[in-house]
């Protein structure tokens, strides 16, 4: 079969048009590189549009005591000290500049009284820190970057006569393979969704900004794009993934109606007085307060209720425990048969606040439930349950340059697809700022990498032929299974066996089931032709979802402790010796290999930002002794 392949030559190819990808592309174009942006969906529709809360940056506009050191501390705490300290440091230091820069691109954030960017409170952030635009911050971010790219194209048009001469967007184009020359990136191969035609981008530098992996779970706040393509592309190109066992499950996603299963119900519902009840009407969270939190949380409903008006003299209601605790509690209630009709629990504000007050404080939730579920939250409870929200794990990168680790050169990664920044758990709002900080860095360093390259890597014909054959295979088979069935089965394995609460036996079983699925996926067939055929597209995404799921299952089995987004029923406690270990996944042939790698050590001036009592919860005795020695030296 002869296949026409369109070829393009670029200096930097950015895969992904979310916040991270667009920011990287802007930087590469500003560095004078001929840049392509590739996206599975239309320009401006990437997942980043869905982010609501805001972007965390210690600008100190609302509370002037805020600064990068406080933000740094919060981020490390949130990630339970498993974060790559250097990434967290760069992020905290550079986030404010990245946000201010957006204003010069035309962004309009909500304002403070003195005309600065307003900042809001969010879980885990010590001071009000999230720059926001109502509850559509992600939309503002992506639209602003999109419009900045258009403005650069307008400059190029004025200079060269063509909008596309220096930066071009290839929308609805999916990359299925990275092509190498030795261990150097030489190009990216994919297809136009619209026509099914193949396209090859020859480029010495590729930036991955493909987002997350949530589609491997049935209940997720993520869209169809989140099939872990970037994770899998990186693996196959010889890069490594870290922290893949850490997934964030948001405790309150909608569970009914089916169409919106997984869509978020914001945390402020609970902050404003909403309570969680099971099918017997019992406010069950009181039974799930772990010992370490006993002192801070109320023991009776009366005390909990007093907290809303008098937080100084009462303890907080247990509904406000950290995300992972609440998610686990809900999970358990449902498992033990006390769930709501649609398999969640009830979240009720209607009996807690007057209707007018609810509408005033939670306008978008009121609207969301009214339009999507036909539920009036001022009169009836909502049904909610945990939903897969964010993957902390991703491509292991050099913190300063965003270059992927492993054997490959010329590959960079930023955004949700990269790992390390958030450790074992991401704080709300830290993702949007992460996209900007490391998106810029990836674009900058991808550009300078191409500057020092002596020769342009070349794509080999054999690799190209192989990529074409792999892409066409599902269309040419007609006796295989339907990709949708396979996706459902994969989601069932991941949801049931590698979900919120993990157990040794189930994780082992999941690996067996994933191996079976791998067999079936290798024989998947897609009906229809090449023009905009979603069945075929899914068939190609499946192998990415599968390998990424294997990484998650393997790492989850290996890590014998509970920390942040990884909970083992058989190892319920956090263990300091595990804090020193990153689990690194790579590919050996087509098998996932898992290795232990020591976590980089925090620099002395950074570790001194914490007090000893706090560190004692996380560090081993040896590490603490070192800390004491440091402190002693400083005292001298």
């Amino acid at each position, binding site marked *: 079969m002869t296949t026409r392949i369109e070829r393009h030559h670029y200096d930097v190819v950015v895969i992904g048009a979310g916040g991270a990808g667009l920011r990287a592309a802007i930087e590469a174009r500003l560095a004078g590189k001929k840049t392509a942006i590739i996206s599975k969906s239309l320009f401006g529709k990437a997942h980043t*549009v869905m982010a609501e809360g805001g972007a965390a940056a210690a600008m100190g506009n609302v509370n002037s005591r805020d600064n990068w050191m406080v933000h740094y501390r919060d981020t490390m705490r949130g990630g339970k000290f498993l974060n790559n300290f250097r990434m967290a440091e760069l992020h905290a230091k550079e986030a404010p500049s990245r946000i201010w820069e957006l204003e010069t691109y*035309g962004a309009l954030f909500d304002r403070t009284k003195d005309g600065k960017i307003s900042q809001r409170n969010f879980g885990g952030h010590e001071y009000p820190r999230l720059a926001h635009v109502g509850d559509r911050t992600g939309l503002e971010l992506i639209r602003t970057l999109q419009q900045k790219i258009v403005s650069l194209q307008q400059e190029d048009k004025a200079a060269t006569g063509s909008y596309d001469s220096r930066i071009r967007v290839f929308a609805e184009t999916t990359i299925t393979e990275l092509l190498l020359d030795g261990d150097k990136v030489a190009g990216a191969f994919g297809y136009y969704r619209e026509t099914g035609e193949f396209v090859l981008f020859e480029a010495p530098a590729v930036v991955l900004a493909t987002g997350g992996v949530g589609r491997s779970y049935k209940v997720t706040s993520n*869209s169809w794009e989140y099939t872990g393509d970037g994770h899998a592309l990186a693996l196959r190109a010889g890069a490594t993934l870290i922290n893949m066992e850490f997934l964030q499950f948001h405790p309150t996603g909608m569970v009914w109606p089916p169409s*919106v299963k997984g869509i978020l119900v914001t945390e402020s519902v609970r902050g404003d007085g909403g309570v969680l009840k099971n099918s017997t009407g019992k406010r069950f969270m009181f039974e799930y307060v772990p010992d370490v939190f006993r002192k801070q949380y109320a023991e009776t409903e009366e005390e909990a209720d007093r907290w809303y008006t008098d937080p100084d003299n009462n303890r907080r209601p247990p509904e406000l425990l950290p995300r992972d605790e609440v998610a686990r509690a809900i999970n358990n209630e449902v498992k033990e048969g006390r769930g709501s009709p649609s398999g969640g629990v009830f979240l009720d504000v209607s009996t807690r606040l007057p209707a007018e007050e609810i509408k005033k404080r939670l306008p978008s939730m009121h609207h969301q439930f009214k339009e999507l579920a036909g539920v009036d939250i001022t009169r009836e409870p909502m049904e909610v349950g945990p939903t897969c929200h964010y993957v902390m794990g991703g491509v292991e990168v050099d913190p300063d340059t965003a270059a992927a680790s492993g054997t490959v050169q010329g590959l960079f990664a930023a955004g949700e697809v990269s790992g390390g920044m958030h450790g074992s758990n991401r704080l709300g709002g830290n993702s949007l700022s992460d996209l900007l900080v490391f998106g810029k860095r990836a674009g900058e360093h991808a550009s300078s990498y191409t500057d020092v390259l002596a020769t342009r890597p070349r794509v080999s014909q054999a690799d190209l032929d192989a990529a074409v054959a792999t892409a066409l295979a599902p269309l040419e088979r007609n006796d295989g299974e339907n990709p949708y069935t396979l996706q459902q089965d994969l989601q069932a394995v991941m949801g049931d066996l590698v979900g919120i609460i993990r157990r040794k036996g189930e994780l082992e079983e999941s690996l067996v089931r994933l191996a079976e699925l791998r067999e079936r996926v290798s024989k998947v067939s897609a009906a229809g032709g090449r023009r905009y055929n979603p069945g075929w597209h899914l068939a190609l995404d499946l192998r990415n979802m599968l390998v990424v799921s294997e990484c998650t299952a393997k790492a989850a089995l290996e890590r014998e402790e509970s920390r942040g987004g990884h909970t083992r029923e058989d190892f319920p406690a956090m263990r300091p010796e595990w804090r020193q270990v990153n689990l690194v996944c790579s590919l050996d042939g087509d098998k996932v290999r898992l290795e232990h790698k020591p976590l980089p050590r925090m620099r002395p001036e950074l570790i001194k930002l914490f007090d000893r009592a706090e560190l004692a919860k996380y560090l081993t005795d040896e590490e603490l002794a070192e800390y004491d020695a440091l402190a002693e030296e400083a005292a001298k």
Partner: protein
Amino acid sequence: MGAKRRFKIWRGDQAGGDLKDYDVEVNDGEVVLDVIHRLQATQTPDLACRWNCKAGKCGSCSMEINGTPRLGCMTRMSTFAEDETVTVTPLRAFPVVRDLVTDVSFNYDKARQTPAFAPPADLAPGEYRMQQVDVERSQEFRKCIECFLCQNTCHVVRDHEENKKAFAGPRYFIRAAELDMHPLDAQEDRKEFAQASMGMGYCNITKCCTEVCPEHIKITDNAIIPMKERVVDRRYDPLVWLGRKIFRRDQLDGAGQVPATALVGARTEGSEVAQHHGLNWHREIPQPQAAPVDETGRLPISEITADRPGGPSPFGDDQTFPLPPEGLNYAHPSGTEQG
């Protein structure tokens, strides 16, 4: 399990296509997009349809449902009668790619022709100071999720492919308005540009765009009308066109210039005309304007010879939404030139 429901879905591509019948199960609480997903998973895996967020936030799943331009993910099945057949067709104003997917590149082209934000030269990043009241007006327009439903609905391009070249459409009028109202935008001539180069004059304020906007942006009232009212160059304004309707063309031609006093008369007459033809004009009629004559005292030749300078609606063969689905004879414009 839910009940079976009858769907008619347009299947085909540039070469043509037609409505195909599907009987599909529908469960409680589902939206049209869910049903399409069920069809993909169970009956026709290659049914093409765009979507991303399933929460009305990304603007990908635009389609025409029983003739009304809507988001598939925000159209609940419970809004239809039990026995109602639901007809789903692709956006009509754009060339079809396959099934429910259309080529919306028209919009991205128009976006590139709209001048970008011009940052103030004297402010460094971090020095921007704006009051909330001042940014709110622009923020309303920045809520736009680029679903292009308004673009698809606007009669100026919906049935008039030839207008696409000169007409940017409501989505880009609000972009112009947003920048015009931006407290720190350094460019001064947004309104004039919209009128002169984006074809804002073609708009005769039918408000159809506002009606379909899922973000409830008041496109006409808050963006187009304020811009029209203050624009300096009034070349292609509907009121002028209204005048031309009332004064026969030959009169216009002969008179050379419509006297201002006559136009005042035209105003009252105009509103009657409007009522008579069912014009959706829920607002005060703007001040009358003199005809945009050139230096010879005549209307530009294109204005006089054109069959319908302002597009067909609302005085003539207008249509109302939703179109009755039984009467839906769907033929997609295809292989057309891009503006």
